[in-house]
């Protein structure tokens, strides 16, 4: 541990000490505004400290963490996503009959876990990062502890996440006993490359168990069963966090793990990922068709999007990394936007998540409905939005690696997907119900900080869709540090 190690880790140090400061400030004086302000300042300081960390990178800190261009890039993305969630959550938490300050402490700790994941290069930091993230999420999902749905969702997540962690840990133990190494890069070598590497039955069992654990965290089929219930039960800002930061960090880890090695994945691992990708795309899109609850619909949609991401992940070489990163960021922006708009629309105690709550919304709140429609079109992959270019890059990368079967399923399933996104949009723009049934239109005041966050997300959505060149160049520089 020398000074430049500490500088390289400064984003993590700033973020975790902010969590402690928020905790201490709660002990001294409970103040929602203060806690939120401290958390936001901490995130901003962590973002600023990325500059100094970049000066010290690339640097391997004590074998557990690797700070390089890739991890710094993803750290910035995750910190910005967390900041967007915090801005959207403030007004939502203000309405809750509950202590609200711990929310920020848990959110910061969860972001710490995500940051550890994106810079981890060792099984120990991988596991600790995943656990910090999950344990914070137990508290966050069940945060509104006197409502039945969040409690049920929290309990489900607790049991299933603990089970999947057990799978992950057991897989790690088996792989370690076979290879004698806990470094991700040297572990990756043991099942990369063609012809098939010499890995014993124990090693393969360990690999499969680890993929199961990771698959659960990513919520890809067939490990997706928790997703709809947890999405539906969790408070809206937390749902946004689970859908974006939690999944994004695990995916970034997977990308580094498998793309860090030079060779392509071996046949068994390749087919495992192809199966997961195809199953996720089909199951996610087909089950979303008949959902009446928008949160559940988005949950199935996110399963499908993880399937698309896995297709990009399978594409070899730097193009695969770049396409996956671009798609992931487009997905983060869009999901944050959708959940942010839902948070803004949910005034009062109740969340507005049923499809019928959105019927005829356009005639009351045209701007918000327009933005909502734009976000959904981006999820569906309609041109001019970030989602379209993301899907374009994914298909380009997959086609250049001749992944014809996944590409075919991707095209078919995203065509199916358009149906349910359009279903929500049709509901938005359909004429309101009879005058008698409809109560007086509610006046909606969008809080300043939430509108700032939403405006940034909408601008990003269209910039990524219309003028991606500077951003694409940034991703290319980042992926160079990985390859």
């Amino acid at each position, binding site marked *: 541990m020398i000074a430049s190690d500490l500088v390289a880790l400064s984003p993590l140090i700033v973020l975790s000490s902010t969590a402690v400061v928020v905790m201490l400030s709660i002990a001294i004086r409970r103040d929602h505004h203060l806690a939120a302000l401290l958390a936001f300042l901490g995130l901003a300081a962590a973002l600023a400290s990325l500059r100094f960390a970049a000066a010290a990178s690339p640097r391997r800190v004590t074998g557990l963490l690797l700070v390089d261009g890739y991890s710094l890039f993803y750290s910035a993305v995750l910190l910005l996503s967390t900041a967007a969630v915090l801005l959207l959550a403030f007004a939502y938490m203000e309405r809750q009959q509950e*202590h609200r300050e*711990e929310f920020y402490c848990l959110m910061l*700790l969860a972001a710490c876990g995500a940051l550890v994941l994106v810079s981890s290069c060792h099984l120990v930091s991988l596991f600790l990062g995943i656990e910090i993230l999950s344990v914070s999420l137990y*508290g966050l999902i069940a945060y509104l502890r006197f409502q*039945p749905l969040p409690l049920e969702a929290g309990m489900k997540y607790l049991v299933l996440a603990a089970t999947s962690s057990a799978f992950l840990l057991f897989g790690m133990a088996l792989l370690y006993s076979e290879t004698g190494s806990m470094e991700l890069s040297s572990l990756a070598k043991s099942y990369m490359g063609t012809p098939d590497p010499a890995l014993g039955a124990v090693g393969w069992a360990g690999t499969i168990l680890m993929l199961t654990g990771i698959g659960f965290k990513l919520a890809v089929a067939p490990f997706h069963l928790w997703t709809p219930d947890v999405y539906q039960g969790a408070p809206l800002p937390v749902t946004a966090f689970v859908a974006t930061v939690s999944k994004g960090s695990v995916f970034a880890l997977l990308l580094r793990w498998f793309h860090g090695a030079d060779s392509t994945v071996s046949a068994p691992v390749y087919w495992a990922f192809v199966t997961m990708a195809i199953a996720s795309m089909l199951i996610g899109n087909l089950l979303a068709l008949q959902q009446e609850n928008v949160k559940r619909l988005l949950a199935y949609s996110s399963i499908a999007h993880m399937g698309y991401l896995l297709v990009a992940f399978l594409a070899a070489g730097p193009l695969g990394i770049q396409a996956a990163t671009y798609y992931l960021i487009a997905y983060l922006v869009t999901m944050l936007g959708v959940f942010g708009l839902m948070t803004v629309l949910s005034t009062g105690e109740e969340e507005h998540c049923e499809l019928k709550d959105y019927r005829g919304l356009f005639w009351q709140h045209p701007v918000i409905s327009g933005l909502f429609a734009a976000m959904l079109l981006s999820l569906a992959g309609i041109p001019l939005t970030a989602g379209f270019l993301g899907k374009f890059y994914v298909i380009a990368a997959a086609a250049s690696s001749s992944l014809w079967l996944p590409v075919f399923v991707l095209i078919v399933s995203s065509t199916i997907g358009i149906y349910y996104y359009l279903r929500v949009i049709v509901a938005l723009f359909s004429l309101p119900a009879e005058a008698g049934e409809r109560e007086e239109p509610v006046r909606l005041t969008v809080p300043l900080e939430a509108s700032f966050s939403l405006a940034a997300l909408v601008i990003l959505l269209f910039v990524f869709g219309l003028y991606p060149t500077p951003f694409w160049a940034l991703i290319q520089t980042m992926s160079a540090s990985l390859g």
Partner: protein
Amino acid sequence: MAFIFYASSIVAVVATLLTITRRNAIHALLYLVVSLLAIAIDFYVMGAPFVAALELIIYAGAIMVLFVFVVMMLNIGEHAAETELDVFRPRAWLGPGLLAAVLLAEVARLVSLQSGAYTGSTEISSKQVAVALFGPYVIGVELASLLLTAGLVGAYHLGRRAVSREEEIRGVDTDESRAVSRGAAVSAGAGRSSHAA
């Protein structure tokens, strides 16, 4: 001492299976203690006496005592005396006792062996563990502390007594408002319904 390793592994597996199939919490806890003791012996035989000691002190000692306390606190009521008597019937302690006797015999054998008790290639001393933890793995220790903070804050929030916000703002703690908030908590609990599709 491969035999001792496999014997205590079997004890651990059997005890854990019995733990998750018992309907009575105290019975399950007794089997869980036995399972943890068996794992401690496994660690010892594999050449990790420090981990074995930690397993005994932390899991079989501290955490099990906490478990038993909580179960006993939940049992306060008219039937408390009956349930406590139930623990002393042979049906309850015979199984865990037998398994623990196997472990005791193994420990006696290990003590009589004096040397060469380890199947692992080397014995890992507590000093080596400390050097590893505070050398290459020091970030792991720090991350584990973050993990505990997250668990602590979450548990504190979820386990807190029901306090309504108005009550807290006014700083009054009247019986009436507390009764109201408790009523809300009860109704929230009673209104649970499954929403799985």
